[in-house]
């Protein structure tokens, strides 16, 4: 059986729901020798500000149980150099590029988005309002409903590209943020970014990251991320791009069944940079086995009818 894996996000159609997560795949071009880039649904490139940034000093990552912390500090080449130096190669290789947009001010988000809208070959804008590792901007917008609404609607006004705000999990009620994003005109939301966390070297009594705190990613967070996708699915009508600890096809399917139209893979692609065909084959095999023609028909199909044995009064 030939299954239809395509995914629609606003005006954009992805060939399949598997996306390389922002910050975990460089600008994509680094992987040209290892991965058939065009076989991915899309590549979300590393977060970009208007200008270059050096990010935080090392150590920038530390492994934790079934996960890792990172505090890269959004090192990057700036949007203009990205457009000049990286985008042409991505285009030439047939990559659907989702560009992760950062800002320390609302104006910067708008300006970066405008530059990307004028460029050739950008598939969508992912608004990073959720990076836990920088002092100004980012999560400041993502942790307030007004901030979220404000950034999304401002960017919405300057671009026809699909706009995908990326939500932080470090909030009490993530669904309300998804709702604010939808109200502001987002074409989709992506979630989750990393969880603010830290690790301490007890011998030196110093933080293990130069930035003291960092973001937790990897399989450890998957159950929380799945729950958040599920909550957002109840709250909004636009597509959800789900992520957080996906390491195999079954994990991806878990997000899709919870309500994600597409998924991103970050940490697991460090462990296994050639994970992509395995994910796609696994999803295809699952759909065939369950006689589902289109991946779209699987999205959000979690069956929460009370289990048979739910009968004891409490």
């Amino acid at each position, binding site marked *: 059986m030939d299954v239809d894996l395509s995914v629609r996000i606003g005006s954009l159609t992805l060939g399949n729901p598997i996306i390389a997560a922002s910050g975990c795949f460089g600008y994509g071009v680094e992987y040209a020798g290892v991965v058939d880039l065009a076989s991915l649904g899309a590549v979300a490139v590393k977060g970009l500000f208007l200008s270059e940034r050096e990010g935080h000093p090392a150590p*920038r990552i530390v492994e934790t149980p079934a*996960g890792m912390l990172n505090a890269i500090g959004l090192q990057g080449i700036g949007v203009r150099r990205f457009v000049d130096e990286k985008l042409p190669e991505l285009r030439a290789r047939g990559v659907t590029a989702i560009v992760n947009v950062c800002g320390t001010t609302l104006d910067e988000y708008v300006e970066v988005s405008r530059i990307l809208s004028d460029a050739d070959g950008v598939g969508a804008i992912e608004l990073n309002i959720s990076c836990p590792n920088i002092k100004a901007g980012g999560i400041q917008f993502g942790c307030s409903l007004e901030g979220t609404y404000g950034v999304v609607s401002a960017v919405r006004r300057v671009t026809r590209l699909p706009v995908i705000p990326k939500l932080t999990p470090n909030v009490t009620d993530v669904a309300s943020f998804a709702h604010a994003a939808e109200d502001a005109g987002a074409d989709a939301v992506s979630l989750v970014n990393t969880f603010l966390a830290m690790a301490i070297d007890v011998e030196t009594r110093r933080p293990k990251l130069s930035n003291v705190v960092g973001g937790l990613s990897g*399989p450890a967070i998957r159950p929380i991320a799945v729950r958040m996708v599920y909550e957002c699915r109840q709250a909004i009508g636009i597509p959800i791009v789900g992520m957080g600890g996906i390491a195999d096809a079954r994990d991806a399917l878990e997000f899709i069944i919870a309500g994600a139209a597409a998924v991103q893979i970050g940490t697991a692609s460090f462990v296994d940079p050639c994970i992509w065909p395995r994910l796609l084959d696994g999803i295809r095999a699952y759909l065939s086995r369950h006689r589902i023609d289109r991946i779209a028909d699987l999205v959000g199909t979690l069956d929460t009818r009370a289990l048979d044995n739910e009968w004891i009064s409490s």
Partner: protein
Amino acid sequence: MPIDVSAAVVSNRPLSADYNVVALAAPAIAAAAAPGQFVMVKAAPGLDPLLRRPFSVFEVLRDSGGAPSAVSILSKRIGRSTAQLYDLRPGDRVACLGPLGRPFALVDAGTEAWMVAGGVGLAPFMTLAETLRARGVAATLFYGARAAGELFYLDAFRSLGVDLVLSTEDGSRGERGRITAPLDRRLAARAAAAPVMLYACGPEGMLAATAKVAAAHGRPCQVSVERIMGCGLGGCYSCVIPVRGDDGRFHHVRSCIAGPVLMADRVRW
């Protein structure tokens, strides 16, 4: 082009209570590896530990026909992954991605190669010594360790025609103290007109000290740095080190793709 293979363990030889050499059947990686390159290894499947770990290619092993068949790594046990590497048994499978990174820049016969190794920093020099010998380059290995029991593969280097200068912290073999001391003296004794390329690998403190000695004597020095790496492929920006760019300013470069071999005088230690 790096290749990712599920490599069978060919052999695993303990050298001490902490050091071991494990050979992995990975012909394509063995054939492609240049001295100074590394592999990203996952010693066991599963989530604990989660990430791969970087290791220098220690030896390129060949089959009876002389074709590259395996790479070995020299590992020092300091945590979970290196403990798993220590315990591997022949036939076990290890995920091995490589070869990765920028190798050492080689010199020609006119220049002497002085390799400076601290502890497990010996690892990249076996293949470098072999390659230099094939190019007719005279080579010396300055090799420091904590104690005599942690100086390994001396005969192998000798049989490659490498001169050895040894030191141990406890004085149990060679000179007592740091390896940069004899290095400094020998550089001082050397005629300025006789070209020497330094190659260094070891703990960062030792690399910084070597860089200083090299600079003091006006000698070029390549260092292989060891930063914590998430991916080894330029994807995660975890492995950065401050390097002076052509603009004269320092930038964070990814040591997995711009390194691990860097010119010492460009690095901010």
